[in-house]
């Protein structure tokens, strides 16, 4: 299936082309970037439409030898979970381009090239099934993101970009060590030295080394998610990034972390992960409450939404480590929902900043009357973020807590408290930004057609995810069932080991 290659190559080559030819031709660069991202979206929709699952749940697999002597392949594969995340990636592409239309004032061609390169990297992360290839894409998506923040960001952009890069690179180096460790352990056992994901799935790991390798992966993913103690890069990066950068960061980059947990941490190290699950859930619940509490006291809207991302991603981790049917389904669904919702909220804050020149809540207020359409959109996405039933986040959060409830009632209660805390800070934000008396008098312009289209895509997605998530959930059934089998096997294994 060469369409998978297209998914990665189209934005990469398109970006290269725009970057080389679009110098000083802003309009051309804008329309070309829009065309490339839209084409990407169409391809993904087509793939979704014709998808027929194979025997092991994989819809499409591409396998080409790359460096055969070291067992490295160019191995791409798409199962239901990666399909959904690829869909999200493709969906946010045109949105990111559309919201940057006028807010990026210099060097549009380079900007477009970097956006597309990031998209290609993220696509690669979601598709790669060879560990070395995965690592390559994992790093590839960082570099353009670093430049996006560093070149087009706000006041403290260099500090934020530097911090972002330092954190994530440190994490991913640990992952590299773990990958190599897994490679050698597998090679010594079977005599086949390979980075092939499918082969490595059958590795029998000794308990202690399994735990260490799992932790290597986990730290890299935890930094990306980000979980509680290593989250401090996220508010800075989100706040300083340009709008499109924030959308890609919050909507997609964070998902690579949770995707990594689902794709690598759990299946490669089922025993270690089963032992680790309570710790993972604790970290998740700390993230939920901690993010929600800190969001309440932020003055900067972008920072507030950044902390809310920590809270929501805490839910996802929560669901993943609950490791049952509802929890995993909910986690995947919430990943999608959070991508759409938070992406839209960052877009809205960006539009608000273009109009008012500030993101500080103390300087905003009363904008619902001059900007009714923007206010209504913000209300919709705020409601979705706080888990209003019928909108995107609800189904995911509901399933996660239903899943967690079966593991531990205490955790579930804490999660429910997190939802209440979410209502508190989100409503407070909405009230301070939109309600009350207008603090600044100027010529307010409501959303124009371009912005309405960009948000309209997301509105449709939010309503669809909330009201009829069956088409999405259908894709997840087979992979989730496989994961749960692993868990039951692992639990049985640890139980045997104990007796």
């Amino acid at each position, binding site marked *: 299936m060469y369409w998978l290659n297209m998914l990665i190559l189209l934005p990469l080559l398109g970006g290269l082309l725009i970057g080389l030819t679009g110098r000083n031709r802003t309009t051309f660069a804008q329309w070309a970037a829009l065309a490339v991202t839209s084409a990407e979206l169409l391809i993904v929709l087509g793939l979704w439409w014709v998808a027929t699952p194979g025997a092991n749940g994989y819809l499409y697999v591409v396998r080409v030898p790359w460096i055969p002597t070291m067992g490295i392949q160019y191995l791409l594969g798409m199962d239901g979970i990666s399909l959904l995340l690829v869909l999200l990636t493709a969906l946010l592409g045109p949105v990111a381009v559309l919201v940057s239309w006028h807010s990026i004032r210099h060097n549009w061609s380079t900007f477009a090239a970097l956006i597309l390169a990031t998209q290609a990297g993220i696509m690669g992360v979601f598709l790669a099934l060879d560990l070395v290839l995965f690592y390559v894409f994992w790093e590839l998506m960082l570099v353009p993101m670093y430049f996006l923040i560093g070149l087009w960001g706000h006041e403290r952009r260099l500090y934020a970009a530097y911090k972002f890069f330092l954190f994530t690179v440190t994490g991913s180096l640990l992952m590299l060590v773990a990958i190599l460790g897994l490679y050698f352990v597998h090679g010594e056992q079977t005599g086949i030295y390979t980075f092939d994901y499918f082969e490595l799935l059958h590795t029998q790991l000794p308990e202690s080394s399994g735990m260490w390798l799992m932790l290597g992966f986990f730290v890299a993913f935890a930094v990306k998610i980000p979980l509680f103690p290593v989250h401090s890069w996220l508010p800075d990066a989100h706040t300083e990034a340009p709008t499109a950068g924030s959308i890609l960061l919050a909507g997609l980059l964070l998902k690579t972390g949770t995707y990594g947990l689902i794709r690598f941490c759990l299946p490669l190290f089922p025993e270690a992960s089963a032992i680790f699950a309570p710790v993972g859930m604790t970290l998740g619940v700390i993230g939920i409450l901690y993010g929600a509490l800190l969001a309440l006291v932020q003055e900067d809207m972008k920072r507030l939404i950044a902390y809310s991302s920590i809270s929501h991603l805490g839910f996802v981790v929560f669901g993943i480590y609950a490791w049952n049917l509802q929890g995993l389904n909910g986690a995947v669904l919430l990943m999608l929902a959070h991508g759409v919702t938070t992406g839209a909220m960052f877009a809205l804050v960006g539009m608000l900043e273009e109009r008012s020149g500030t993101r500080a809540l103390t300087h905003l207020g009363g904008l619902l009357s001059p900007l009714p359409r923007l206010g209504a959109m913000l209300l919709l996405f705020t409601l979705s973020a706080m888990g209003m*039933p019928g909108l995107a986040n609800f189904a995911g959060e509901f399933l996660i807590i239903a899943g967690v409830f079966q593991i531990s009632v205490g955790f579930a209660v804490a999660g429910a408290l997190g939802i209440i805390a979410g209502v508190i800070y989100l409503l407070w934000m909405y009230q301070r930004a939109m309600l009350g008396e207008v603090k600044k008098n100027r010529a307010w312009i409501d959303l124009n057609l371009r912005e309405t289209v960009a948000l309209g895509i997301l509105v449709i997605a939010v309503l669809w995810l909330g009201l009829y998530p069956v088409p999405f959930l259908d894709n997840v059934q087979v992979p989730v069932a496989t994961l749960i089998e692993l868990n039951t096997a692992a639990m049985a294994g640890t139980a045997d080991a104990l007796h």
Partner: protein
Amino acid sequence: MSQWLWLIPGAPLLGALIIVLLGGLLRRKYLAIVACCAAAAAFLAVLLAWLAGAASQPMQQTLYTWMTVGDWQPVIGFSLDRLALVMVSVVSGVGLLVHLYSIAFMAEETDQRRYYFFLNLFLAGMLLLVLADNLLLLYLSWELIGLCSYALIGFWHRKPLSANAGRKAFIVTRIGDASLALGIFLLFSQFQELSLTALFTSATAEWETGSQLAILTALLILGGAVGKSAQLPLQVWLPDAMAGPSPVSALLHAATIVTAGVYLIARTYPLFELAPQIQWLVTAIGALTIVYGASAALAQTDFKRILAYSTISQVGYMFLALGCGAYALALFHLTTHAFFKALLFLSAGAVIRASEDEHDIHNLGKLGGHPPLARWSFLIGAASLSGLPFITAGFYSKDAILATTWSAPAGPLLWAFAAFGALLTAIYIFRAYLLVFHGPGPRNSTASLPRSMALPLLVLALLSIVSGFIEFPEGWPGPHLWSAWLEAELGLAIFPSHTITYNLQIIASLLPLAGIGLAFILLRREQVGQPLPLENFLRTGWGFDAFYHATLIRAYLALARLLRAVDALLIQGMLTKMIHGYLAFAVICRQGMERGAIEKALAMMTRGFLAFAIICRQGVERGVLEDSIANLVAGLRFGHMRLSATQNGLLSRYALAVSAGVVFLLGYLLW
């Protein structure tokens, strides 16, 4: 008819969609008409359901599967049994009337699109709530009406009071909602099923009466009901919610949303029957809330706040009935209450609107000149609320509840509470009536109401009187249509023996009359200038707001701020210091290699020890940890400054370093 069931919530939903999508194209006047048509369509659909025989045969419809997770497939499905039929009739009927009333009431507003959108959406949500055949869908609509309540309370969002009230309502009810959600999760984790009928069968089959799980479940569901119905201790949002427009107060905060909790308990009563303790708790909450609401209403000066506290108190009666197992009677009171409380709100709204948004009852009395229709309809509503014997609907519904309370556990005590509440009810509502309509201002007025406002008032006034006649008190000759019809679904209420019942009924019918008398006396005292005992305490609603603010909200904010400080200091600070530490360490290593002089290292060590000793002494003397850390950092930074001189940027030094490294490597490899 079954396959057209979706029309009942669908019609207002469609109306809301039309308003939000195409509203920009319509003129202001037509927005109201679209909204009214949608409400009327829903009402017509309900009428059709009656005609199609829903009263005898429950109807079912499944629209589509909502999500699929393994074997569990919650659906979007409706079921219309008798309980639901009562509710949809009340909701769609009152809803239609309030929509009509809004046409004239809101005619001057600029932002009607938002108003009608949320009003229609609310109607859809409420009907969906009533029709839902599984708990998940019920929870969806439960949240949806909470949202609409938030948006409509805060409709005049430019006033911070309104916006705050909306947010408060949303958050407080959301606390209850979280409890309900946990209850749903508990049920789900036990039975892997959320469809109501299936749940009840398995719950009654698997749980024993009084088992812990049953108690926990009932308690959690009760939490949800208490939040939405504004019962103790989550009642604080309702009085503030009066900041919204009057029609909204009439529809949401009198007729429908606050009765959602009553409906929820009536709907899930098999679960409550499994937990008698919780059932008694429901009774106790109801009894306490009756007295709480009535006493707080006594001291209010804001016209609408009186009605709000009155609503709290009246919903308490419904809870009382629910706790006693008299579900049909609770529903009966719900229905009559919807009529007379909506009537009271609408006529109060008409008065307030005619007096240019004056809310204070004393000032209203001084202004005078209220429309006569509003006055008469308010009087009818007040009579019905206080339960004036024989001629009002309120008498029939409240009296039945009072009578059935006697036979509950601790019945006489509960009865005393309820009866005391009834007395207070008559006092406060007639105090308000007398102050507003018989104040010093001019009494006669020719001001007439617009027709679309008058019609709902007339209809509701009629219903406030006649709707009681379908169910005569226990032991009286006359029809008992209501309880007979609902018996199959909700069972019969238990009454004490006939002699006791008759005695109770006599006392209950005397109470309102006594209350009206007391109201006159109280008014005299007030005009002389003697305040009510405990007036401030009562006016602030027993100080609940201040109490919650001092304990919960402040603590929450303090925790958030503390965590922010911790975040800034500990985590960020530690990271920076770690990086600086690494840098300094690296430089020290390099310096040591380059100079290679042992004395220097020794001198440094001595100096370090000295500095350490000094720092230790200072630390001990001052007893402050921060100082030592700060000194350490300063020392590291000093070392860093000194040692970074080696990184001089000279090309040849770097080249030398490279070649030295190569020589070293080669030497290592060769030998």
